[in-house]
């Protein structure tokens, strides 16, 4: 692209400058400060903090529950998006607006609401308790909270892609002899797969960083229901800024690794098609 090409926004130079400036001050600089803070630790101290059994347990919960939540959203978010794009029914607009509620609510409110419902004496919790299912103060509750707050990402990512799968494509497949499940598997799913992966990635990223809603329902038992962000806060409360930074760096690295992997997978999928074309 030529740098001189006319555009609505003022020149490329200016916009590129702004982009770099904003990314630097808002994203890169704080991250660099974090790494620097951790870097001032001695290597063995660092290692001691980030591999403590309590830290390891929190990684497992944070990433495990986030992946689980993102997977749940992959399925149910798709179903919700499908219902909203494919069917006309009274109240559709209302439900469509409700999807964004988790975005608008302070996360602490979501956490308190979930706890009220799922606590052993809550509306639903009291019926689950006799069945031996404990939601509040277990990893199940953590997953539930993460699912709730990351659900809009999947729905909103998939909706436009589903709108693009034209009815004609399904009609064409049907006249060619394909039954509904086959049409779904071979036509609809491949078309919306990139959007689904994007939704999955966004959901996962949101869930890993979540703090507010989880601490209310998790119970925060060390090694069992303690998520990494909470562990960081605990370090901070003990004025152990370096320890907090060290855990932060680990989270940063792991999250980045997961996101990069998904991105690479997506890119690989796209390239495979282009290669097939030659």
């Amino acid at each position, binding site marked *: 692209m030529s740098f001189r090409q006319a555009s609505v926004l003022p020149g490329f130079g200016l916009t590129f400058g702004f982009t770099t400036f904003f990314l630097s001050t808002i994203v890169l600089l704080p991250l660099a400060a974090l790494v620097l803070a951790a870097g001032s630790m001695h290597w063995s101290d660092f290692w001691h903090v980030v591999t403590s059994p309590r830290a390891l347990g929190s990684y497992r919960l944070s990433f495990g529950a986030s992946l689980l939540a993102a997977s749940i959203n992959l399925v149910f978010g798709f179903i919700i998006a499908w219902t909203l794009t494919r069917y006309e029914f009274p109240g559709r607009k209302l439900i469509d607006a409700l999807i964004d509620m988790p975005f608008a609510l302070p996360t602490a409110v979501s956490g308190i609401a979930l706890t009220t419902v799922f606590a052993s004496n809550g509306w639903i919790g009291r019926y689950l308790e006799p069945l031996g299912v404990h939601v509040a103060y277990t990893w199940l509750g953590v997953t539930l909270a993460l699912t709730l707050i990351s659900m809009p990402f999947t729905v909103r990512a998939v909706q436009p892609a589903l709108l693009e799968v034209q009815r004609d494509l399904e*009609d064409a497949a049907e*006249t*060619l002899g394909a039954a509904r499940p086959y049409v779904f598997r071979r036509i609809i799913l491949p078309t919306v797969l990139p959007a689904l992966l994007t939704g999955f990635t966004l959901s996962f990223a949101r869930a890993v960083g979540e703090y507010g809603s989880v601490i209310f329902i998790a119970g925060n038992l060390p090694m069992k229901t303690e998520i990494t962000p909470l562990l960081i806060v605990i370090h901070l409360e003990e004025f152990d800024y370096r320890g907090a930074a060290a855990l932060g760096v680990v989270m940063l690295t792991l999250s980045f690794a997961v996101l990069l992997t998904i991105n690479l997978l997506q890119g690989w999928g796209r390239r495979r098609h282009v290669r*097939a074309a030659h």
Partner: protein
Amino acid sequence: MSITLDQITKHYGGAPVVNDVSLDIGDGEFFVLLGPSGSGKSTLLRAIAGLSRIDHGRIALHGRDVTHVAARKRGVGLVFQNYALFRHMTVAENIEFALRVRRMRARARRERRAELLRLVALEGLDDRLPAQLSGGQQQRVAVARALAHKPEVLLLDEPFGALDAKIREELRRTIREVQRELGISTVLVTHDQEEAFALADRIGIMNYGRLLEVGVPHDLYSRPATRFVATFLGAANLFLARRTAEGVQLGAAVMPPATATPGEREQEVVAVARPEEVEVAASREELGSRYLGRGVVDEVMFTGALERLRVRLANGADGPLLVMAGAEGEENGALQVTRTPASQRDLELRPGQRVAIGVRRVHVLPTPLSSFTACAMSASLAEELVRQPLLAELVARTLTRVAVRVEPQLGDPAAAPAAPAVGFSGTTVMSGSDGESAQRAEWLLRRGAKDLLVLPPDTAAPQRVLIHWMGEAARSATLAMSASVLRHLPAEAVYVGIFPRESADARQAQGLRALLDARSEAQAAHGLEMRTELRFGEPASELSARLAEAPAQMLIVGVTELSRFGERFRALLDGGRWPVLIVQRGPA
């Protein structure tokens, strides 16, 4: 027959989008469904494919009733306007889709794919993605894909719509060749008459959900039965003419009748002259055809092989008035003429030049709906009548005009019409608002109105038209009128057969037979598809009971004699609850 459609009807929100369509398409035939957008042609195609449910009727493919068979089991191939290729699959995968669904072996699939790509002239593009192909190539892939599973029927929904002119022509030729080579029965939907002419063995023309006419392209072009077909298939000049014993009188010209119809009364008719059948010359003597009248050249347009003229009629004192059927203000009276290079050389024309107009050939439409005359006791009442929505809609849809006629003594049994010398021509329209409608209708019918529309105020277009005749002599005229009205209104037709109540049991079989006869005559002679109902009782009261059952209904009723008219028709006409069209044909 490879495709049989029997009384296909589909409603959408109350109004029929496909209205009683019956059609047989032969083996290996290339059939084109032609019509403007919203005429129901695509819905009909989707119904054949099984993608659109129908409310009524029967569909058979090669003798197999598939009315309730799912699309995937019908064995049809469908091609869409926007190609509908699977974008994440290569050309090869797209074409093999139907074969893969049927679990065909890889080797057999490959062979079939190669064969199909050769057929649509796309060899070697197997591994491309749709996005890497041009529009024309994509549509070729779509055709190959639709043919992969060897369907019994190929359906094409505006397949050239998104392509530019040159590609369109190439693809059109390819599709015709493929169709001939495979001998596959094909239905193509289009709004482009040129495309229809280029491809079709037979054309079916649809409008307002009805299949108006079916025929080979040449017949439809030169002998259309309806105004819509006449004007939709190429340009047409429509005239109001008179059919007399000598022939068809059109302006100064009297054309000998193409087919003699003895015993036919003198009446107003609609005549069609194609622009290439109209001749212009410097003077009347230089015309090689029948002199029609004078005109002034309005516009000369060069279009390559042909020259297009618009000639404004200048009706002089030297002959009877020449009347164009359309009533579009200033546009009225502008005749469309096309000239070949040879005649352009003989006489060079410029706008403003005065010419003599001749006509080589006219075709008289068999419709009894020629023009309308709004008749009322004062000019303002008549004008009000002209503005009635149903009349305005009929006038607009039949491309005709509505005249105004003032009869100050309308309905007065003692008074003669104001101008007894001028007969009633076309369809007379009167207001049916008050309690004296029956009396006024009788007055008009006794003074020569043959077709009389009694129109209550603010009647909208009906959704159902009931048809009945009182006396066999009016049967054919009533059917012809009904067919004509229903071609211009998106409504369903129902013939109501009524027999005396006494001895109803004995009459049941006879009544049913009469209904079937009426239906088949309507279908065969007038191209009108109608449902039938059998009732017992006194005709007028049965009809008004039936009309009162639902809103938005209209009645077309044939009468043969006017004795006790007021008594018989009071229930139907007075009070003005529904429009009634009375067709009067005395026993000759």
